[in-house]
């Protein structure tokens, strides 16, 4: 495939139109004719070629992973592995399925999102609509950025530190000596919310910033205060941004491994703790697809690579599905004002 524009054969009408539009847009700015590549300087041409090459490389890597996983996954996936719990065994045929890790992934995602979404929206609203004192706003902003940048293993260890404190015993369980275990769906879910939080904040902020100032003023001009403006105008306007951010955050939780290993115990099966139904599950340990894949891959101890491939395939389907949802929401898009 030629990396140069205008020379590719059999381009669709749509693509050609798009190119023409881009060319028209560019030619408004400068005098250089973009349509004719002859007029491009060598540096520009090299730059363009590099851009194309890296873009294509990235695409091929992404497709490579997908196709490889799909190929391996479909080979080993069947209904059985989806509905049976994992068992410890040295024989791969007796290791069961990965029902528990799937349930674990769903539980943890729901738990984390339930905490992250309202918190993230609140932070974003405060940052965009109030943000005073400015120093505090900068501090909060920096905090959110640190959450994005911090290695999840560090966040996980920090979480363990907290959830092993004595007063946190109700969220996992305490051994006879009084030592708190600190690993449970509660603990992992709480820390997972930190992983998702920056995405919710980011999506919401972006959407709120996209609401023109005069829309806020229109609400004030009708005698509304800031609180009802936020509730009735701004948050509804930011719907799609909030949904996008939250879905991205969910995808992060689904793909997170370190937190699961450190804070969920990464036990083979879901192991309820205590006697209260439902609550016992959240107090207990479990695993997710990510930790399951790790443990059963050749890198782990489970030694059931076929199951690992199948689980990885399911994991990828979930993440790709979430990303599709993000695309759908963003395409439907933000409200547009004149």
């Amino acid at each position, binding site marked *: 495939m030629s990396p140069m524009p205008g020379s590719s054969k059999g381009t669709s009408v749509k693509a050609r139109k798009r190119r023409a539009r881009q060319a028209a847009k560019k030619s408004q700015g400068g005098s250089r004719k973009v349509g004719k590549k002859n007029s491009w300087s060598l540096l520009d041409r090299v730059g363009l070629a590099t851009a194309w090459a890296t873009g294509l490389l990235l695409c091929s890597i992404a497709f490579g992973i997908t196709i490889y996983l799909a190929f391996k996954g479909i080979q080993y996936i069947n209904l059985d592995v989806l509905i049976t719990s994992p068992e410890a065994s040295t024989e791969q045929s007796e290791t069961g399925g990965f029902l528990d890790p799937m349930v674990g992934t769903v539980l943890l995602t729901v738990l984390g999102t339930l905490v992250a979404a309202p918190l993230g929206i609140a932070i974003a609203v405060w940052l965009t609509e109030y943000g005073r004192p400015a120093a505090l706003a900068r501090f909060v902003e920096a905090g959110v950025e640190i959450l994005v940048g911090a290695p999840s293993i560090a966040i996980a260890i920090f979480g363990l530190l907290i959830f092993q404190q004595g007063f946190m015993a109700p969220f996992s369980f305490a051994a006879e000596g009084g030592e708190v275990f600190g690993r449970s769906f509660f603990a992992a879910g709480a820390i997972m919310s930190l992983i998702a939080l920056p995405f919710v904040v980011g999506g919401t902020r972006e959407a709120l910033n996209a609401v023109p100032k005069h*829309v806020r003023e*229109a609400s004030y*001009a*009708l*005698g509304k205060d800031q609180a009802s403006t936020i509730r*009735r105008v701004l948050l509804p306007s930011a719907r799609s941004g909030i949904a996008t951010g939250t879905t991205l955050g969910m995808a992060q939780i689904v793909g997170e491994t370190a937190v699961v290993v450190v804070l969920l115990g990464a036990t083979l099966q879901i192991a309820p703790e205590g006697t209260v139904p439902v609550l016992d599950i959240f107090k207990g340990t479990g695993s997710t697809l990510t930790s399951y894949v790790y443990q059963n891959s050749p890198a782990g101890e489970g030694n059931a690579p076929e199951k690992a491939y199948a689980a990885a395939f399911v994991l990828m389907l979930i993440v790709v599905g979430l990303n599709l949802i993000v695309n759908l929401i963003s395409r439907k898009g933000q*409200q547009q*004002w*004149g």
Partner: protein
Amino acid sequence: MGVVDEQENLTNGSVPPLRQIQVEGRTAPISVAERVEVPEFVDQQAEYEEFDDTQPEWFEQIMRTESLSISFAGKKAVKEVSLPVNAGEVLALIGPSGCGKTTLLRSLNKLVDLTPTASREGRILLDGTDTDLYDDTYLRRRVGMLFQQPNPFPMSIFDNIAYGLRERGSKKPRKKELEPVVVESLKRAGLWDEVKDNLNHPALSLSGGQQQRLCIARSLAVAPEVLLLDEPCSALDPISTTIIEETIVELKEDIAIVIVTHNLQQAERVADRVAFMYLGDLVEYGTAEQVFKAPKAERTKDYVRGDFG
């Protein structure tokens, strides 16, 4: 405590809520009787006689500014402007870009106060009462505003109109109770015939001109006495502009209108009175005919002839 009771009565009844402020050494809030005092029109008219020597007929001032100055971070955008707004009339603020006309307009409903760097000197009176005595939200119900860009809220046409009537963003009062007001507002804004069958459609699906008329209807729903228009047609096509202008002329019977416009033809078409501003100063104020046909100030002459701006 008596003060508390009074405050509660104020917010419940139709009487305007008060800010508890200190006026000339007084600590208690000003009593209702004092506040809704009937303005002394005759005196005010005398004060502004110099503005209006061509039309000695009686007119009613609904609003006026007294030596109003507004600065942003110390830089004066409006300088000592005293300007009356008459009921039953359209007042056009004209002048080159950056002359302070939009700032002046936005100060009338205190939107300027939302800018953190803005500071104000002088008084703005609504019905003879200093607007500083009113709650901002109350003032803004009486002084509505329309913006340059149509800006319906992302909700249905019905909910857009009902938005200002609903308290604190709740769904109450019910749709049935609001319907007459919504219908009436849409009719007055000249939009009813086009939207009567799809009141539940999202407002943002309307065309630009329809959106702007929806915004007019939205303002009308809260029954303002003054309507501020900030270049309301600058984002619209000529046909929509004509419809909006016709609506403005119809509305002025009940609502005093202040319009900022760059379009002198528009000012000539809709305005009864015109104020020309330049570099924050109110240079000339008079009837539309006088300002356009026989401007007194040299600056005004140049501007209305199109020599600058």
